[in-house]
């Protein structure tokens, strides 16, 4: 049996950002769809009687999860650009029994695209260029290992 999104992400986070493992483990009580939504959504602040510290708790996890999830569930860049695809991904699977999709074998070109995506989104999330490269390498090597099995 191949790896699922959560296997891949957990391995990468454990290797590159162990400080975020606790957050990831908490998130993993949700199903994949909900994890994606939680990571895409903004953090709630200013609740009545709420209190919190300004702490960047999730930097690597959202980047890695969202890229890997896209690769697995929608194909590399394929569905991402079509409105129909986006709608389908948002509403289409709702209500069906959740079965975590396995990571498919990716071609060399696809892995290059994934690498590029991680670097871009990592930079957007405030990860330094070197760390982003290293993170992208880790993601690609983990995906390649899975595909090679």
């Amino acid at each position, binding site marked *: 049996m191949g790896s699922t999104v959560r296997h891949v992400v957990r391995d990468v986070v454990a290797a590159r950002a162990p400080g975020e493992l606790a957050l990831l483990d908490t998130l993993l009580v*949700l199903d994949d769809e909900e994890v994606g939504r939680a990571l895409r959504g903004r953090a709630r602040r200013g609740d009545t*009687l709420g209190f919190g510290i300004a702490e960047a708790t999730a930097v690597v996890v959202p980047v890695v999860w969202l890229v890997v999830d896209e690769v697995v569930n929608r194909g590399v860049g394929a569905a991402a650009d079509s409105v129909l695809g986006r709608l389908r991904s948002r509403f289409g699977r709702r209500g069906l029994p959740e079965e975590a999709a396995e990571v498919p074998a990716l071609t060399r070109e696809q892995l290059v695209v994934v690498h590029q995506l991680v670097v871009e989104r990592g930079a957007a999330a405030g990860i330094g260029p070197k760390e982003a490269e290293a993170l992208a390498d880790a993601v690609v090597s983990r995906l390649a290992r899975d595909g090679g099995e």
Partner: protein
Amino acid sequence: MGANDVRALADRGTVRRYVVTLVVLVAAVLETARSAVRAFTSEASFRRCADRAGVDLGLPAEEVGNRLAVSGAFTDCRVGEEAWASGMALAFTGGVVVAALLLCLAIPVWRGRRLRPAERFDGGRPTWLPLTVHLERLVSRSELGRRAPVFVVDPRQHAAGAVVFGHPRRPTVCLGAGLLSCRARRQKAFEAVVLHELAHVRNGDIGITYFTVALWRVYCAAVLVPFLLLSPWLPAQEQAPAAGTLAPGLAAALLGYLSRAEVLRHRELVADFDAVHLAGAEGAVWRTAAEAEAEARREGWARAAGRWFAGLWRAHPSWEERHTFLTRRGRMDHGATGLQSALYVGALFTVLFTVDLTEGRAARLLFYAAVVALIAAAGVSMPRKRPRPVSLDGAGARAGGRTRPVRRLGVLVAAFCLLVAADAALSPFDGTGLPDAMANRESLPAEFRHEPPPPPAPAEVAEWERAGGRDVLDRLDAALGIAPALTFTSLPPEGDEAELLADHCAEIRAVVRDGRALRPLPTEREQGLIEDALTSAEDGGALLCADGRGPDDARAVVEADLHYTRAGTDLMSLRLTFLVAGLVPEPP
């Protein structure tokens, strides 16, 4: 003077300030509901009452207005309808409060539906200290007594924060996934956040805070937004609320929001204080955050003013305020802050202006309760002229939360009962008072309202007077004065009489001629008055000056006198109109 004094100062009067906030919000609901009910029902009520008074609305408008003005049945009916409308507004307000209570109960259920129990995350890092054990230790440090909360985790919340909600006796502390991830790396920060939430539990902040929040939300959803949406349609109604009548409701809402935010900020400061000084949270967490905030802050007075204004509306103080409060020592009691006083005075005026004592018993009871609440809050809402040292008896960082002075509560309840009893004994207005009747009289639809035409513009009158009007009026006044001389006892000597009369006849003819030659006055009524006066003077003069009759004919003299009197009355009316228009002609 120690840390506890600071806490005592901040904690003082919280419940009373909350109550003032609630009173203001309820007043806002009542005021807006009343405007709305009146606007929607008064046209139908007017037609019903006119029908009951037997006045046919098909008659000319002025006739209808006059008949209704003297109809007791109509006034009684309108007062009755008004009382019904007030009752509806009160019932609606009661409904809003009940809805807020229900919402208060529903919020925890709604929020709790997607949360997971904390036990499920016991295996997380640090593995040597399971989450629930860690939380239990924090609970025991917080001296919660029997109010130990249930801990849950929100896996979707990736900010490093927590929030408390739920039933005051069975509170729920919800930890964000982001906070759990801090537990291994920044244990002190994790503890500070949890201890802060536990301080809210210990201080009994949950029930009243969430009720205020719920009341505000219900007010927005069920009162404010529908009313604003309907407001374009309201002017088409017979008794549309003018912008001025909407203002008290909106002002009260604004005030309610501001004072809610103010009380909440204070509860946050007190919770911070308890977390650090009572439960031993690390003060450095606050210091670090305040320093980070200061670094990110941009300077400039405009930005500072903007920050201050935005801060007024927030339910959370800035990190700088939090840190300053935590490290403050040895304060004197200066009484309330300027903001608290301003909000209090605003609340006072709002209540005075929104609750109408003539509206019936229920409204009066509400008013008395508001008065008692405001009197109770007066002591904590005004600055002290002479600061005094803080005394620690009765308030301070003690286990069990805020003090609940039973005696003071007793006095307030007694004051309320006294007011109610006095009300029952005196009962000056029972819904049929004079103000209501007046209000109803004034609220006839415009088409049936009989209003005098507007007076001429002062500038136009002045112009008319300059163009000879003043001269004609004065001369006419003087000429008309001859009538008593002719009729009554003070007759001038024989020879002079004929001369006097000849002069008078010449003068009256000249004045009438000059008067007719004047340009017309701008308004119809005033022009009519001057024309009538001239005609009457002419007629009187003709009787007096007719050949063969003259002043020897007693009948002619009396008739002439009548004409002159009529002319004099018209002149008087005209001068009165000018007076109203803002012009005071010099007396002749």
